[in-house]
């Protein structure tokens, strides 16, 4: 019987985990430098956190992994976390609501069904959430944090697209649609279906054109937004907000593209939305979601955040080439069928570990290429024979203490 992975699930091999670990540590360092603190939320959450209007779009909700828990006789379902932000918002309401400002980050997996099974159904993301303030500075800080991480990772050609949920919503309100129709159309736009607009009644044409124009234009400056603002007073507030964020980024030397149609997938956004890509691959995104925490039953607390898509980033990273041979790595050869010698081997390994060396007992036939020292344990004196593979020299030592002295001296 063949043992197979489940469809849409993937393993991370030792080589891939090296890349993943590198990603994690650079992301973690980046967040810590800006004063964010790490949190970890559970894999299983209540479905109802994600169902109400203003959280996930129906398209995403139709693909969550939901089920009845072992005590689910009430009929209410639980879900494998489909998103990183909503659980953190839930955690904030649960445990930090009295703290006011919270700067949190996480590295987590999310689960969304994908039909063909060729794409990942389990995805990893690193995200940061800035809860408690509604300031242009907060949105800009998050964009810069994301860009800094990408820079530290050495990702080239990163493109930043800015959009604004408030602009789309204001336009939809002006189209004279009922709240349900607005919500449906907004969801369709967020799911990337800009053609949904074309199906609107011709009577709405003036507004429809303004919306179409906004959704089609992609500009490297905020100038055209000022023009639109003059046309439509309702758009003034959200456009001013978007312009402020864009201009602060511009003053700090960051390039961007205003692309109103780029904000998609999450209904909870209320303000600036940003998306990061390189070579047409989306590698991250985020935005302001001031209504989410009150909607989930928390206080009226504004927030914004972003996530980087670690699966995409892994494809762009190469594992760091390791130093040729490390003076800190040692292989101990101790005959496995000689209890006395084996015991000596384990004692040596223990004291070397305590002294800060990596030391492993040889179990297979081959010696890993990246280690510098081999120490063979012998029956008779001198107990330890040392080989320096880097300099092709041999030494002997009668005791563990002397082995250590020798290594300290020669490894410098």
């Amino acid at each position, binding site marked *: *019987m063949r043992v197979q992975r489940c469809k849409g699930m993937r393993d991370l091999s030792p080589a891939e985990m090296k890349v993943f670990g590198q990603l994690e540590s650079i992301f973690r360092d980046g967040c810590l430098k800006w004063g964010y603190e790490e949190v970890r939320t559970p894999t299983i959450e209540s479905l*109802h956190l994600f*169902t*109400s209007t203003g959280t996930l779009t*129906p398209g995403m909700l*139709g693909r969550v992994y939901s089920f009845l828990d*072992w005590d689910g006789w009430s009929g209410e379902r639980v879900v494998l976390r489909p998103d990183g932000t909503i659980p953190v918002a839930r955690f904030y309401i649960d445990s930090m609501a009295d703290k006011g400002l919270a700067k949190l980050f996480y590295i987590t997996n999310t689960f969304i069904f994908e039909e063909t099974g060729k794409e990942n159904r389990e995805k990893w993301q690193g995200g940061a959430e800035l809860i408690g303030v509604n300031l242009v500075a907060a949105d800009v800080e998050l964009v810069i944090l994301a860009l800094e991480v990408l820079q530290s990772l050495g990702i080239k050609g990163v493109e930043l697209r800015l959009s604004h949920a408030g602009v789309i919503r204001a336009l939809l309100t002006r189209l004279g649609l009922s709240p349900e129709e607005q919500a449906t159309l907004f969801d369709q736009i967020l799911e990337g279906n800009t053609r949904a607009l074309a199906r609107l009644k011709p009577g709405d044409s003036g507004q429809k054109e303004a919306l179409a124009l906004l959704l089609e234009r992609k500009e490297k400056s905020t100038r055209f937004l000022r023009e639109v603002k003059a046309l439509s007073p309702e758009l003034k507030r959200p456009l001013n907000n978007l312009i402020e964020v864009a201009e602060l980024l511009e003053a700090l030397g960051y390039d961007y593209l205003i692309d109103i149609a780029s904000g998609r997938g999450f209904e909870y956004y209320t303000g600036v939305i940003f998306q990061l890509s390189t070579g047409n691959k989306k590698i991250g995104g985020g935005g302001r979601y001031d209504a989410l925490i009150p909607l989930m039953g928390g206080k009226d607390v504004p927030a914004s955040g972003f996530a980087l898509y670690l699966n995409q980033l892994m494809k762009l990273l190469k594992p760091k080439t390791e130093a040729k041979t490390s003076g800190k790595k040692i292989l101990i050869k101790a005959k496995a069928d000689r209890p006395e010698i084996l015991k000596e081997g384990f004692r040596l390994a223990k004291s070397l570990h305590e002294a800060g060396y990596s030391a492993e007992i040889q179990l297979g036939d081959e010696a890993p290429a990246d280690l510098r020292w081999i120490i063979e344990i012998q029956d008779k004196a001198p107990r330890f024979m040392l080989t320096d593979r880097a300099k092709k020299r041999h030494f002997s030592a009668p005791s563990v203490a002397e082995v250590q002295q020798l290594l300290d001296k020669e490894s410098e």
Partner: protein
Amino acid sequence: MSIKIALPKGRLLAETARRLQLADLGLAGYHPKTRFYRLTSERYPDLFAKIFHEKDIPIQVAVGNYDLGICGLDWVEELLAKYPSSALVKISDLGYGEGKLYMMASRAGGALMLKDAPAKMDTIRIASEYPNLAESFALSHRLRRFSVFPLWGGAEVYPPENAEMALVSRRKGEPLNNDLVPLSEIMGFSAFLIANRTSWEEKDLSEITSAIERAVLPPLAEETPPVKSVATPVPYPAGDTVRLALPDGHQQPPTRQLLDKAGIRVDDYPSASGNRRPTTSLAGVSIKVIRPQDMPLQVANGNFDLAITGRDWLREHVYQFPSSPAVELLDLKSGRVKIVAVVSQDLPVTDSRDLRQLSNGGESGLRVASEYVNIADKYARDNHLGRYRVVPTWGASEAFLPEDADLLIENTETGQTLARHKLKIIDNLFESTACLIGRKDGASSKKGEKIKAILEMLRDAVEEFK
């Protein structure tokens, strides 16, 4: 090249049989009085038919056990609501067996309107035989918190006390229960000819499908469906009313007998008009008639304080929810059956150890069919059956062996039906009788005295039986 078709029992059988006769497929054995599940064609030597509960047909066709099937579109959509990528093709609307699915709320329950529903912070409970369609409805209407009670039947009796909404099916001409108001029409349905996608693409099914499609008849004068009882709007039971659930179906006569022995008067039970809210002489007790399969969950979630069901269904529930508060209070000692593991007589298997070997030998794993999916799952786990899958069935499960399942977990009284289908029992799981169930903490609640009194009346009646 053999062609397999799954045909419905139940409401669609008579009309489907007429059409197939006209289509001249040589399936003369398919008629309302048939006692066989397997049919071969006198005309097409490669055509093989099997009769299933209508609800099983889309699943059997989707998994590729059958190339073709005839069933209501409602059950096709119920499957697709949860598994949109199922390998099913809807070939044609056969134009009979029409009906509609409605989302209903209680007139008495009143004010709940759909557009207010998303804003509600309370859980909205939806009762239905179509749990997947009910969930889709809840998600697309953006209900914030909802529970779906997957039912075996009787959804319309749940609102207003036990559910805010019920997704119910109504055949053409069947009046809506006037206790309930439709909030939304979910879909219209009729009998459909469906095919497995791979079979449709790779086999030549056209001779059979066009014969079926051509066989159009003026529909039989539809027998007017019985008017469902239109019980007077019920006042909400007061907080200390004991809510008792009595079984519908074939458990009614022994239950009636027991109630009589216990001196508990219940009017209109069993009900000729389908009344599901009989009245009783017991003060402070309200009664509803629901499916015994659905009772343990409804006791666990607090909708009922007491219920008369079978130990099999209580176990089925507890295996799904091990910490459930639903417990057996009294063995009613009637309706004795054994729950058994069954295989085909042709299989060289005599016990669960042989089964384990069989399971480990196969590439695709053992197929375990059962109405009791959680009991079947636990049996497979406890016996380390390795790779296996549980195929849920909705009755006539013995027809699944040997083609469409390898193992069956089934109840049996004498074993005769099983033997007639060339099946053999390889394991006894447990014995089941009717029992009174309640909540663990029931006796200590404020209704505790009344619950204890009813329990004692029934206990005395059972003792007397002996």
